[in-house]
């Protein structure tokens, strides 16, 4: 469990997580709880920050006990949240940008609604690949 924290969540318009992935492997139950709580509460911070920053990438918006939350807000108010323990912002930015490309493709699916979960295996695979490449 000493592995670093790297949890990526896409939160839909109604605060539903539509995609979750733990990029560093399984965690203890308590840790999972904590991560979700931190991510969820950081949405408040995202709401604050997104009106202050012009670009979609919001950098670190929230911290809790050494856990940082970096956010990215799409035009459709879908939020990408990455819970990490202090990664470099540049790599996260590029990660978010790439994931945004993927997400756009998901959006092109006419059957995808902004609140429906992303269950595509291919999306999952690519996100993991991106994380491995960009976030180490």
């Amino acid at each position, binding site marked *: 469990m000493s592995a670093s924290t790297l949890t990526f969540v896409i939160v839909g318009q*109604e*605060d*539903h*997580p539509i995609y979750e992935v733990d990029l560093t492997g399984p965690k203890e*139950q308590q840790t*999972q*709880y904590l*991560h*979700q*709580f*931190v991510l*969820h*509460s*950081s*949405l*408040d*911070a995202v709401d604050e920050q997104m009106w202050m920053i012009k670009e979609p990438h919001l950098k670190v918006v929230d911290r809790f*006990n050494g856990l940082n939350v970096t956010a990215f807000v799409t035009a459709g108010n879908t939020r990408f949240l990455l819970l990490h323990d202090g990664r470099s912002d540049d790599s996260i930015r590029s990660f978010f940008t790439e994931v945004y490309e993927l997400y756009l493709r998901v959006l092109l699916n006419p059957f995808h609604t902004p609140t429906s979960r992303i269950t595509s295996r291919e999306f999952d695979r690519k996100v993991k690949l991106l994380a491995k490449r960009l976030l180490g």
Partner: protein
Amino acid sequence: MDIRPWLQDLYAPAVLVAATPAAEAVVQVKNGLSLVDLLRPYSSVYQLNVPVRVGESSVRVQDLRVRFYDAATLYQPPPEVIEEQLQEVLKAAAQRHARLDPVPDLLQRFTSGVYAIPADVVNPASHFDTLVAQLVMPPLMQQDVMYTVRDKDFPRHYVLLLDVAAGMSEKRATENLAAIRKLYGEAHCSLLRVNSGNGDRAHSGAPVDFFARYQHACLRSGGAGEPLARPPQPPSGVGAHLTVQDLDSVGSLVRDVVSRTLLPRLEERIARLNASITATRRGLRNRLNRFWKGTAEDRQTDRPYPWHSVEGQMRQLGDLAFLLRQYAFAESTYRLAAQDYQAEGNSKWYAGVEEMIGLCTVLGEPADPIAAVLLQNDPMKYFMRAYEHYIKPPAAVLAAAAAVVTSAGGQGAAAAAAAAVQAPPAAAVAASKVGRMLATRVILLGAAVQSAAGRHRATSDALMRAQSEEENARAGLLLEQSAYSMLYARPPLMRKFAFQMVLAGIRYICCGQKRIAIHAYRQVLALYLGKKWRYIEEHLHAVLGAQCVEYGDKERALWHFCSLLDCGHRPPAQQANNVAQFLNLLTGIRDQLAITQDGASLVDRLPLPVVNRHDVRVLCSDSACYAGPAARTVPDSTWVKMEACCTSGSNNWLVDPGGLKQEKDHEEFTMCVRGEEVGVQVEFRNPLAVKLKVTNVRLICSFTPDGDVAPTAAVPVGQAAAEGSGGGGGGGSSVLLADGAHPLLPGQAPAAISAQPGNEFIMVSEAQLTLHPGEALVEVLRVAPHAPGWLRITGVTWTLNGVAHGRIAFDVKGRRRKRPKGTRPGQLKHFPPHRRLLFQVVPTMPRLELLADPLPPALYSGELCRVMMRIRNGGGLPLRSLALVVGHPEAVVPATDANKDRPLLDSLTDPREVVQLSKVPASARGGLQLYRLWPGRELAPGEVLEWPLWLHPRGVGTLKLPLVWYGEPAIPGAKGAMRHRTLRICGSVAVQPLLAARPTVWPSPTHLSHSLLRLAVDNSKEGERVVLQQVAAVTVPPLNGGGGGGQGAATTPGAGTPPTPSASSARAPPAGWRISLLGSQSSSPAGAAAEQPPPPPPAAAAAAAGDGDGAAAAAPPRSLPLAVPLQPGESASLFLQLIAPPPRAPPPPQQQPHKHAAGAASAEARSRGSSAHGMVAAAAGHGAAISPPASGLATPGAAGSEDPGLAVVQAVEAVRSLALTDGGAAAGPSGRLPYVDGADVSLQRMNLYGPGVLAHFYRRGRRGMVATIGAAAAAAAAAPTGAGPPGPAGAGPRGAAAQALGPPPPPPGAIMPPTLQHSASTGGLPHHPLGGAGLGPAYPGLHGPTQQQALQQQQHPHPHPQLLQAVGSFQRGTPPYGPGGVPQGFNPVGPQGLLAPGAGAAGRPLGPTGPAVAAPGAVVPASAPGGSGPGRPGQSVPLADPPLDLLLLWHVAVSTRTGPHQGQQRIGLCRPFDPPSGRDLSGCLQAQTAPIRMLLTGPNGASSAASSAGSAGPVVRHDFRRSALAVVPLRLVVRNNMGVEARLQVEVGEGWQSTDAPHSWQASTAILGSSPGANLGPAAPSAMSQGVSGGGAGHQAASAASGAYAGATGGGAGGMAAGPASAGPTGGGGGGGAGGGLGGSGGLMTSGSSITYQAGLPPCPEYSWVGPTSVAVPRVEPGGEVEVPLTVAVFRPGAYCVAGYRCTAIAESSGAVEVQRGEPLCFRVES
């Protein structure tokens, strides 16, 4: 909110109260109050107006609040005690769910003392002295940190208590007062009268709870300004003895204390301290001083400064100024002190000072815009600084402890210090705890300030910072406070609030405050639920569930555990745990339905197993019953179409084919029958990794029985409602509700779910299932209504693991109506039948059931299989009018079930095994077969009907066989009830390939009416050992000529004729194709036929008779027995000869030129011997059995086949005439068979021709073979190479067309030297060892076929439109024309057009119309293919020969396959199929058949076909000395393959006419017996003459032409030009010029019988035609042959190749013209 009053209250001056026990008793005994309690209500003093000088300034103190504390309680309780107290507080708070009290204040600073003694003591001064002496000082005073009480400057006030009620002497008191006033000063002594009341509360002036709110909670160990315990309450109540006067005097006492003692003394003290500090600290000198000193000592200490030290004094000064609200002065003093403390590293003191600075900044500002000011000057930094230093602890604490140890002796040994000595770590821990508390206090202050300033985020930040290292309970409080501050923020940060609340809850749980924790969690539950944050919800439910269990709140716990059940993402162990804890909790609970939350019952929310409520499928039998699930997958339209075949009588166009529109109250319903079960398919899924046992699964239904009376008025409302909610009507005639609420409406599920398997009306059956991990089961739940009425299914209920009840209501989705009928769900949507949950139960009906699925799982392609359908009437009424609709042509039902128990072969040969179709309405046609079974009989309830079904799958793949059984109730029901019921069966058979036969057909080189067939049969590698048993040629009457007239009836001999001759003779049997093995003597009459005088007279009947008489015994049979075993993967080849049927009788008088009228032939055939007779008779029967749809004939056939008796009779006749056992053997000499291996004789009795099931499979969809004529020449000319001639698509009048149409020369590539041909064909065809002598080497000529095939393929693109349409109806979907046919046909247009100028450039002027017409003619086909004018490129004519089907009977003796066939004999039929071209045999034949076929036979039987195949030809000996001219007789046989009569025109010598070459040699012989001249057309006179073209050098036309035909040169263009030349003036001129040079004396025509010679040069160097050059045959009937004798004369010995003859056929009926070029004939002449 202004925080300052609160802060000022918090930091009010404290007054120490000390009383002797006697004085204490004075107040306490009667009133239950301590002295402090008595004083506290009056601690605020207003309207003082006392001037006080602080520092340099002077202020007036207007009001002051002081705090009173008992001296004995003034010590700081240990941290543990504080924490315990906190827990107590929290508990109390949790009990009442109230806001929590603030943390008790921990540090006090005492500024004055009040000493009280009873007023009546003797020597008050001594009492006061002892009191002071015995006073237990607070710890800080003991440590000299605080300015001690004993100091004489300490402000003191002395009070004498006078107990009025106790009767204290007033006088004495006054004396004492005077005495102490003398001693202590006038202002500092008072007398207080108490207890003037009488103990009656009513008398007392104080409010009831007047004192209570000043009595703070007591700590367990005392301290913190409160006593250990409150004094016991006196019986009369607290303060009962105090009157208003008493209380007033208390108030004035406090006022005295403050104004006269406290403030003046404080002022003095401030002045003193200020002077002292100014002396030592302020100023430049002191600062430098301290600087040096500071650098000198570098130490860390926690040691408190004694009060008399400078540092202590500074703090005191600051505090005093602060208390007197001189904040600016206080702050400067604090800052001064802070420098010192920091320099000395005394973090505690420094932190304290910073804290005070922070407070000063807060309090010292003007009141106005506090927030704005605070923003400028944030006190938070001071608080944070203080916080940092407060929590610095351990090292400093340890160092301090060590310092204490070393200086223990000298310091006066305080108790705390001693404790620290004994246990330094403990002390350190305690100290650190105190430090933490202080830090927390600072943060609380800061947070309060921030909150007051409206900066809630900062508040939260501060609190969050403080909580992280705090002890649990306090941290919980801080977190909670922080969370609330998030809510205060604008906009409220709900999610952060929720998170911090959860964190607070966790802290509360850790410290055991579970109720508060639950409270905290519940607050945020609503915020998180439904947001799909899985882990968060799980955590909340898990925590809340566990806590609820702990507190015994089972219902809530159940809800939370219920939510936890959806835990598929957790490891299995945990899932099991979750399920178990839920079920355990639920075990004892009886009424689970009563557990509700938000109006929903727990039962409705049980998530296990997952039930798909949207996708339920109703399996209900209305008028249609289904047999098995496969039938339900077939689209409804299929069934409706099939049922329409049966119900066509009762339906009309008004009725929708889908049946009656069934709506009740605008909601669609389904009919079901009383007593029959209604099934609902529900899917249950187990999302967990735990095995689930689901029992007691039942449908929730409501039922309303049909009532006779009007429902609304009859039933009282209450009772009806009760019944309605009871789920099924408790015996009333109706349970309809009177108030309009309908029990059948959706959403009104019966409330009770207790076990009620049914009542008198419905029977709900239970199911149970076990769901393994991750498993999904589709369970069919059933309910059976027992009475007519209305049934509604609303949902399903179940019991999980025997404990938990679950229930769910179905939510069926339907398509939205365009125009909703109402507002209820059932009215808004349209539901397909399988989704309707409302049922009308109708009274008992008959019902058809399939007892077992009869179909085998797999069959071989072509296999014949009989299966038995067992149908039972499962209903309550008998059925009549049984019918069966078969939806696939590869299955058929016999007319009788008599053979169902007999073996397969027996029943196949049984004459009764016939097929008898009923007429199907035109709308439902398309492969549907309708059988009416058992007419007039009824199927009683329970009776089982067995009926055989024959399967003969011919494709490969899966055969889907839909069947519909139909029946009507014997007693028709009431109006609206079902009129009929059907049973829908859909069987499915996997069809595997076994045998594949590839036919190769080519025309026989010896017989014009024969074809050769090579049949390669491959056994599949996956197949079994198969024996080929029989080959049969089945002649199928073509569709367009299938029905003959009725004229054959009279001629049918009547030995076995059926008694209804009209039917059997309705159609004359078409003369069938015959078949024989190639090479067997008796069956290959090649030689014999050649010797026989072929009878070509027009009377075909006579020919047939002659043929039949002559070769009755040798007539080839139509079926050959074989025994060819084939192992899996093996192949075999059969070489067969196909013999076309003889030409038919002339057409009947009515204008139907191509009608089969073979009455004579059939009559003759019937009189024939055994085998042939049998064959033909069978064919006759066959024809008779053909159903009207197949034959296309109308009424008589339909009427005939409707009669069931007739078919049987026909069959009897057919079988009787079959005589197969001996006939087949006799006809086919089995001794000559290629293989003889266990031929199954019984198999050979198989009736392949009769009306039985076998023939049924092969009798439909046949149509006559078609050839295209006309444009063949053009197409063929352009196709292969570029040397083609200009198009002969002749222009001009039709009469001239025969002349104008130049026969196209075969393309140079097509005619090859014989040797070349031979070698080329070697690879193409295998060598056949059985080739007869007459056949040569049995290469039956690739030449002809290739050419003809080329022609044929060119022609195919231009068929009639009907032909194109007809192509699609070929049975196996194999169009006889290749897909590439169309482009192939159109491509030649280009080359042809291009070539035309090229030909012109060759020097010969072309006919003016030739190319001009050819080009448009070539284009026409696309636009106007139907036109019949000249210039049309092609015209299809039917061929004379009927289509042929070849069947190969095989059997597998003992099947080795597993399954129902194991060990069984399997038989089947295989049908040749030509995969490359995609044709069956008929198509192959058609491809090889030209409209006209010629065979030029020379002496000794050499034929042109044979010579072209490479034989050297016969040798003719002639003595040239005797006669200069050797005349060789030739015989040209022409067969009209067309299905129409034709007029033939045979021309030789390239149509050269003697008139054009008068000087040529001519030889004439006797012409035909009949004078052709009379019949010839306009060209006849010239054609009658035979011109022997002179062989002049200038006449390249003829020579080049003949050379071209010999394949020598390529100058075909010149030769071709001769044709058109005769038509037009230009051509005629050219030709005439050529011929004119010869100078012959032509033009003489003799018709004598002897040969005469005329002068002139021979027209051809090699040979010359003798006799008429143009012979006309007026009429050749379809299929007929005509022989034209020709003669050729040669002049010298040598080898000759005779070419240059052609035949033009003109079909009179359609005007089509076909020109056929003859093939060269080779022979040698030796002298």
